[in-house]
Structure formats: C-alpha cells, structure tokens
C-alpha cells in the first residue's frame, strides 16, 4: 500500500456493504483507499448474505402480520401443488425486507421535488416501501371494516378475501388516501419475490417455490446436463444455505 498523503482505513466490510443483506451506515461513512503493488486480498473481506432468523415480527404489528399472512395465502394458495404463501414464509420474508434497507429505499434517489410523471418515468412518490405497506394495510383494514360489518381481513371467507383483493387490483375498491392498484402491484410483486427468492431471506421455505417450477437453485455446475436435451434435470434444489438433509443430525 503506497498511499502518500493520508491514512487509509481498511474498512472493507463497510465499503462492500450489501443493500440486500446488511444494515450499513451508508456510503458516506466509508473512507477511500489507495491500492497498488498487488491484488489486494485479505481474508474475510467478502460479504456473504446474513440468513433471516426466525423470531418475532420486526416490522409488522400483530394485526398487520395476521392480515398479511391471510393475503399471501390467497395470492399463493395452498393446494395439491404445494404449500401456500403463509407456510412458504412469504410474510416473514416481507417483514424482514420491510424492516431492512429495502423498506427504507436505501441507496435510491429520494431528493425532492416529487412530481407525478409519465408511466415511463417510474415511481416518483416520496414514500419508501415500508411506509407504502403501513399505509396500504391500514387502508385495506378500513375498507374491510366498512364493507364487511366491522370484520378484519383474516376473518373473511376465502371467497370474500379474493373479492376484496380483486377489487383492489382492479381499482374498483377505493382505498382511503392510497392508490390501491399501485399498492396491490407492490404487494403481489414482493409476495412472489418471497416465494421464489433463496430461502435465506425467510420465504421460499423448504424451497417450495423452486420445487413448484423445477428450479435447481444455487447449484452451479451443469456441464454434464447442457446437452441432455428434453430430459428433466434430476437433482433437487439447493439453497445458498445448502439443504436440510445435508445437515449432520446429532
């Protein structure tokens, strides 16, 4: 290292902070560094993902969580093809994502002025996903209460739940102070993310989403199967964490 003028802080872990996995103080806290003379390599400098741990809700309130579990189970119902959104951990996935950097729109350009644009200019709101969820779930709760005799979403019949979701998706159910069509898209997109993302993030439990479609996950070497045309890939999926049956049992 040949930096002539300044002290170099080798805080590489903070430099390589991951928006997906780590809570970081932001780019401004890291210090620049001068590298020369060799490929810099120090052990432990990579930033592997941090597995989501089971435990209490980190973002959702108990009522929100109950509603979200019911919603993800309608978006992805349990049936003979496999578990639904709730048992696949989609609500846990959403909870941890919304409590983390994604929920805060960390790293995105969030400077004003905020103006409505064309569809091609993308989301221009000032609210990050966590705020959108909080407002959206509250608006759905109000809507259900007003239209179903004071009930909450999880107490509706599956047919009633589907009707509520369909009406929000189509914009026929008007939510107070929330664009329901836009919120439904966010809800659906992030729920499906949770169903198909690596189980390390709390969803896709037991690789249910991957088993549904036949995706082999983080397996990385298919040299022996590239040219085996029209033959189903035979091995079960693998997560970044490996497979449960790889774990040595005491």
């Amino acid at each position: 290292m040949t930096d002539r003028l300044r002290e170099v802080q080798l805080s590489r872990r903070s430099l390589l902070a991951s928006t997906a996995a780590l809570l970081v103080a932001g780019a401004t806290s890291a210090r620049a560094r001068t590298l020369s003379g060799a490929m810099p390599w120090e052990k432990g400098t990579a930033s592997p993902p941090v597995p989501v741990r089971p435990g209490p809700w980190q973002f959702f309130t108990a009522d929100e969580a109950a509603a979200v579990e019911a919603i993800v189970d309608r978006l992805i119902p349990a049936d003979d093809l496999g578990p639904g959104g709730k048992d696949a951990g989609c609500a846990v996935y959403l909870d941890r994502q919304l409590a983390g950097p994604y929920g805060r729109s960390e790293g995105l350009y969030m400077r004003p002025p905020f103006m409505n644009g064309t569809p091609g200019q993308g989301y221009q709101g000032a609210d990050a996903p966590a705020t959108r969820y909080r407002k959206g779930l509250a608006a759905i709760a109000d809507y259900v209460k007003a239209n179903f005799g004071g009930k909450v979403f999880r107490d509706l019949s599956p047919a009633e739940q589907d009707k509520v979701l369909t009406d929000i998706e189509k914009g026929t159910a008007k939510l107070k102070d929330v664009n329901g069509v836009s919120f439904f898209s966010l809800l659906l997109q992030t729920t499906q993310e949770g169903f198909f993302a690596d189980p390390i993030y709390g969803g896709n439990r037991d690789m249910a989403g991957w088993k549904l479609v036949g995706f082999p996950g983080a397996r990385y070497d298919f040299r022996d199967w590239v040219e085996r045309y029209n033959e189903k890939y035979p091995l079960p999926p693998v997560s970044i964490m490996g497979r449960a049956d790889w774990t040595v049992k005491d």
Partner: protein
Amino acid sequence: MARKLPRKDVVVVGLGWTGSILSYELAKQGLDVVAIERGPWRDTASDFPPGYGQDELRYGVRLDMFLRPEQETLTVRNKMSETALPVRKFAGFLPGNGVGGAGLHWNGQTWRFLPSDFNLRTHITERYGASKIPEDMTIQDWPVTYDELEPYYDRFEKLAGISGKAGNLNGKIQPGGNPFEGWRSSEYPTPPLKQNYGSALFAEAAKKMGYAPFPRPSGNISEGYTNPLGVTMGQCTYCGFCERFGCGNYSKSSPQVCVLPALMRLPNFAVQTESEVTRINLDNTGKKATGVTYVDTSGEEWEQPADLVLVCAFSLFNVRLLLLSGIGAPYDPQSGKGVVGRNYAYQTTSGVSVILKDKVLNNFIATGSGGMMIDEFNGDNFDHKDLDFIGGGYIGSGQTGARPITTRPVPKGTPRWGSQWKKATAETYNRAYNIGTHGSSYSYRDCYLDLDPTYKDRLGRPLMRMTFDFHDNEIKMSQFLTDKTAEIMKTLDPVELTASPRKGPWNSTIYQTTHNTGGTVMGNDPKDSVVNRYCQSWDVSNVFVPGGASVFPQNAGYNPTGTVGALAYWTADAIKNRYLKNPGPLV
C-alpha cells in the same frame, strides 16, 4: 479547498474495461498512472463465489452490484416538451459500480460491428440514395474503418478469451460461423460454448428456413484459457447467473479476471477507490487540462494533477463529466449547434416468446452469452430498397438463465395470482422461452443529453437529463425483425406464440438493455463530434475519451463491448505511438 496530490503522468477516470486496458498499456510504457474509481474495489472469487453468487434477489432484483442512484442518477423524458424526472431506482438500464464497472456484471456478448456500420451514412447514401435517410436522423460515418480496427478487435478478443467460431477468416467464409461478419485475422481464442436445448431448437428451425445460425461470440469461456497478459480463465459451468451477477469461477471475461492481476503488479500504477471525479481541471487558456478534482467518501476534496486525462467511465457519465467540466460546447437541439450530449442512442430490442408442447427445456442451464444467432437481418446485410426503414439486428436464442423471481412465463389470459396462476406457472416454466432480437438505434436531432435545470446530486451538481424516444424508423425495423423471428419459431409448432415488437414510448422502468451510446461522439469534423478519430478532445488535446460507448456516432445492431474494447486498444496505440512523441492535437 482541495488538497493537492503529487503530479502523475496519467490520470484515468473509471477502472472498467477501457480504464484498465489503457492503464495497463500506458503503465507498461513506464508512465506513472493513477486510476480514480468512484465505487469499491471488487474481486470475483472473494466477492461473488459460487455458493452465494447465485442469489437472484440480492443481485438480480435488489441490484446489489450496481450504482446507487443516491450517488448518481439522471433525469429522463421522452420529448423536449416534457418535464424530465429523476430515475429514482435504476431499471431500464443498469450502470455498474466499482472496479470492473459494467465489465463485471455484463452477460459477455462480444460482437464486432459490420464494416458497413463504420461508414453508415456514406454506405446508405451510395446504395439507396440520400433520401433513404429520414431528415431528422443524424447518423454519420465513424472516423475509423473496420479494416483499421480489425487488429484491435483481435487484441481485445484475445485479452478476454472470447469463445466463438469465425465465419470469415481473411475474407474466406467458414462453415459454422457468421458468414456476414467482417473479415477476421484469426479464429476466436476459444471454441464455441455448448448449446442448451432451446438454442438447439432455434438453430434447427432457422436452418430449415435457409438461414445460417452460428454460436454467439461469448465472454463466458468454453475451456481453460491463458491470455496474452498471462492470466488464466476457467471453463464456464452454465450456472445461468451472468448478467447482473459477478462470476467467481473465473469463467466470465472481466477486467478483474483478464487485466487487473497483471495491472496491479505494475509498480507505477495505483487505483484510488471510493473516489468520484467531480471535474476535469483546465488551465487559464481552457485548452489544456491540468488534472482532475475528486471527492472521496468522507467528503474530502483532492486535486490530482496529471499531464494526460483519460475519461474512461460508463458512457453516460463520460458525457456528464465533460458537461460539468466545460469541455466542448454543449449540444443545443433547437439550433443543432454544439456537440457534447449530441447523438445519444440506445438499442432497439424485442422478443418472441413461445410455449412448446411436451418439451423439457431446462433453461436455467444457460450462460449470459450462449445461444445460436442469425445475422441475415442485421445492418445492411439485407436489401432495404423496398423497406421503409434502415438498420437491423441479430436474432437468436437469448435465454440467459431462467431465474424464477423474474422468469415465470404463463399462457395468455392467466390470472396474476391465485390457484390458476400457480398451476399455470408450474406447468409452463420448463417448456417456454423467448427468442430475442437485438437491433440498431440510430441517432436523431431530438435525442440528446444535457444538464437538468432542477434536480441535483448529493454534491449539489446538476443531474444529467436524457431526452429519448424510439422513432418510426426503429419501430418499423423492430416490427420487421420480430415478424422474421415469429416465422422461424412458428415452425416449432408452439402451443402459444407471442410476438412483442418494440413500441414507443421508451420506458425507463422496463429493463431493455444497458447499451447507452453517444454524447461524446468521434468524428472527422469538430462541428459534429467531440473527439477526433483517436478519441482525443478537439478542444483540450490532453484529454482523451478512450473508447467508451459514448464515442459511438450511433448504435449498431450488436452489443457494444467488443467495439468498446477495440477502441480502447486503438486509442492506447495512438497515445503510445503518436501522442507521447509529440504531445498536442493528433489531427
């Protein structure tokens, strides 16, 4: 006040493909070279190891490797009459970040442009007459020819170990390769990749229609390879995680794998990471650069004096840096005068998706640059006399890995959620795929880059503003290519076929391609170009913009990286053999 650092011979802005090639070539000459890179140091095997590199959520969806818009973004609009608004989250295209730049997260598709792409305006005028070119289209000839660039394409391909099959060796057409390509002085350094089932089916169908399918030239390497700098690459394992991902297997060509191990050993080279160049400094004549000013991540400002400034950032940021530094006159679309920001162009892509009967495609077995292609409808490879457009593109099996958060085809009319959605997703996933077209984007008077009047970056500097939309010529071209693609795929007797030609308006929220070109275009006349044929600024002769796609006068129907690499070597030779002997304007 910026703290002044000791003088260097050369300061390089950005350490991606062009920055690392130029740094190596000039440091090897004995010059004292420093590269300033705004992102972090990145390696491949330690940062993206097989094991957790294959993480679709982190890299493919949350875009962990990419530039954070908080640090730099731009505003976009389709028309000059609209208000441009900031891209708050990158989606339509994805600029890289850190050492390696976009060369770390790319797919590896490494093409050469056609000989006629380099004298485009002359070629079209001679073959069809000047009236064939729409009035508002501002295409122009490159100031270099294919023949001049051929040795440099060759050098870049050997550096990167590109897999492929030559179609034209020194003018002799070769079976199995692309018969339309320009002449090549040598075969690809490594043989073609293996093809997965979808690609094989496309190739078979195309062949039956009389076309000449060939394997796509690839920066995903088919076998172990040691390049001329002595660094070794490994065989691709077809894991299906290339674009948006780093390759920890040393199988995907990148500055990390192909250049940095040799460059970092040179004692007269250093890279300053986490440091963003804010401007190129000029002396009081305005004709000579004195170096650059940069700000590090603690907010401290530094001045790096240097005799030579090489602007090697991603195309869009090359343009912004020149605008912010006052080098060259900014383009004014009303008067047509000025040059910086002029001739911004993009790429016109489209696709045809099919669902096949009783097929098991295993499309998760893929590489970023695998696939079989046809080139009959690229550039001017086909007669446009009776067609109402110019330009074209390649067509081919472009599946790069069926990662399931983003790739879940279902039949038309399937609900977006619920039991029916779940059933359709399960049934269709492994028997559906997409054939892509990758077409040219020509430049227009009203497609350009300038500084935004409203939005600022974190340092208070104006964001760059992009004004872009697809024009009729490109939309007709895309319809034509998409129809040809559909004809081929119909022969596979699909259960369902959906053709999606590119239509306007351009939308910044749907990923299309990261191939942004133009804005600092190269030319023979300072009236319509920012740099001369050696990528040297007309206004400030010790500033070069070596080979970023920002120097393309318009975009061809190919991915840009091969041409970017060739121009980097071309510029390096001009600096080594001409500029250093006699510093000053080369033209």
